[in-house]
């Protein structure tokens, strides 16, 4: 029944895609998210740089990490939207992970779950 199940969607995307993804998500009804700048490690990693004549491997690439909590009903749409908007077909586009949330609370009002989002 409504408002019971809530999901946490974690996604790592390319920084310059942030704005586009945010707009796309807003249009499908996402009303909030948390954004963190992270260093990503993955298949894209590992090109080398030179500094003062010395080569070194760059293992981490800057990514942006999104955390979006939405009701179960919206979860798939969110995943789908991120997948399509963040996509550049180049390696390093990122990942999306979906987790269960036991419950959500809005600090200001104390509303829970769906109503908190």
């Amino acid at each position, binding site marked *: 029944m409504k408002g019971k199940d809530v999901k946490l969607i974690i996604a790592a995307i390319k920084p310059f895609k942030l704005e586009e993804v945010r707009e796309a998500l807003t249009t499908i009804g996402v009303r909030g998210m948390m954004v963190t700048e992270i260093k990503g490690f993955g298949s894209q990693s590992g090109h080398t740089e030179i*500094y003062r004549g010395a080569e070194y491997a760059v293992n981490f690439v800057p990514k942006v990490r999104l955390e979006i909590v939405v009701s179960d009903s919206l979860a798939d749409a969110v995943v789908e939207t991120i997948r399509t908007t963040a996509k550049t077909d180049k390696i390093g586009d990122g990942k999306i992970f979906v987790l269960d949330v036991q419950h959500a609370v809005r600090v200001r009002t104390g509303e829970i779950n769906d109503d908190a989002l």
Partner: protein
Amino acid sequence: MNTPMKLAGLATLGASLFASLPAWAQDATAEAAEVVAAAPAAVDNAFIFNTLLFLIGGFLVFWMAAGFAMLEAGLVRSKNVTMQLTKNIALFAIASLMYWIVGYNLMYPGDAWTMTGYVGQLFSAKTIGGDPDLATGYSAGSDFFFQLMFCATTASIVSGTLAERIKLWPFLIFTVVLTGFLYPIEASWQWGGGWLSEAGFSDFAGSTLVHAAGGFAALSGALILGPRLGKYTKEGRVNPMPGSNLALATLGTFVLWLGWFGFNGASQLALGTEVDANAVSIIFANTNMAASAGAVVAMILSQLIYKKVDLTMVLNGALAGLVSITAGPLDPSLFGAVWIGGIGGVIVLVVVPLLDKLKIDDVVGAIPVHLVAGFWGTMAVPFYTDGTSFGMQFVGFAAIGLFMFVTSGIVWVVLKSTMGLRPTQEDEMMGLDKAELGLEAYPEFTKG
């Protein structure tokens, strides 16, 4: 900055007076001369003062190169800071070399014009060694040192406008042409004793010859290069890209302000007489007044228009005030300097948004500050300087502007169609520091 001829004249006058003394006095003078040879008093102190003015002015204007570097590094986004710093130090070094190899003699041909009044000596490197030539009234080395700094300043102006979206090498090649040929040629028209000076144009320290000239080179570049990715959205919205470090930008502005005392003050070209010393003093005071007025006016206007003070506008305002007074820093009263400089502040508040409307992306505001305020400064000269006319001032500005806009436009187009000016979209998005230089300015702070 009038042509150096002036001083020579003065000195020879002196010599002739010497010669015209009654015979009996000659001996006396002879003895005197002998005594004098030993006593310091015999030294041509004016020569030393004039030379010293060039050296002090020169190192102050050198300092402006650092000011431009800091101002621009502070107004670009962090992902392009290393590139901006690289361009600024490289352009100064290139200007030094090019001005030596071709620039100086192209600008100051003396009587050896290739095309009288228009093009000076081509490909003749400047030499400064040997004994001092007293007739000129100053040391050749000090003059070269001082003039060179003006050439470099012109190039510094360009780098800011085109920041964040032009590759390193095409920019540097443009700098080679600008500092070796374009600037020296247009400057020779006035300061080299060319056709503009003949015609009665007046530009004391270079509102037109340096600042507007650099501004026009920047403008043609901006038009050909186009704006930064995402700066103007399809819906026509302007997407601001705030500077990454306003402390650096402010430092840069203070440095430029300081350097400007040398820029305008030493353009008096002489310190050897009380009148010259007094002139330099007036120029220092006026220069400071114009900058202050520009800053205050910009601050007040930005409060009135936007309901908040925009520091970057205040910084631009101070600089616009400085450029405005540069064409005639000697003749106006302090009050004159204030209102002339103040209008510089108005220009900033009007022209910065205007350029955005025209979708001309000028990252640091060099066009309002150097080109438009340079125009204003040039046109304001007749208010205080006798023997100048608005008409002639306009002609001079237009001629220089046209020449710089067209010639640099050609160079930009050639570079674009050969090696290309812009990095790939992805590189620009990633930032030139990582993409082209593989070196971030703040590797530990920024988060991509």
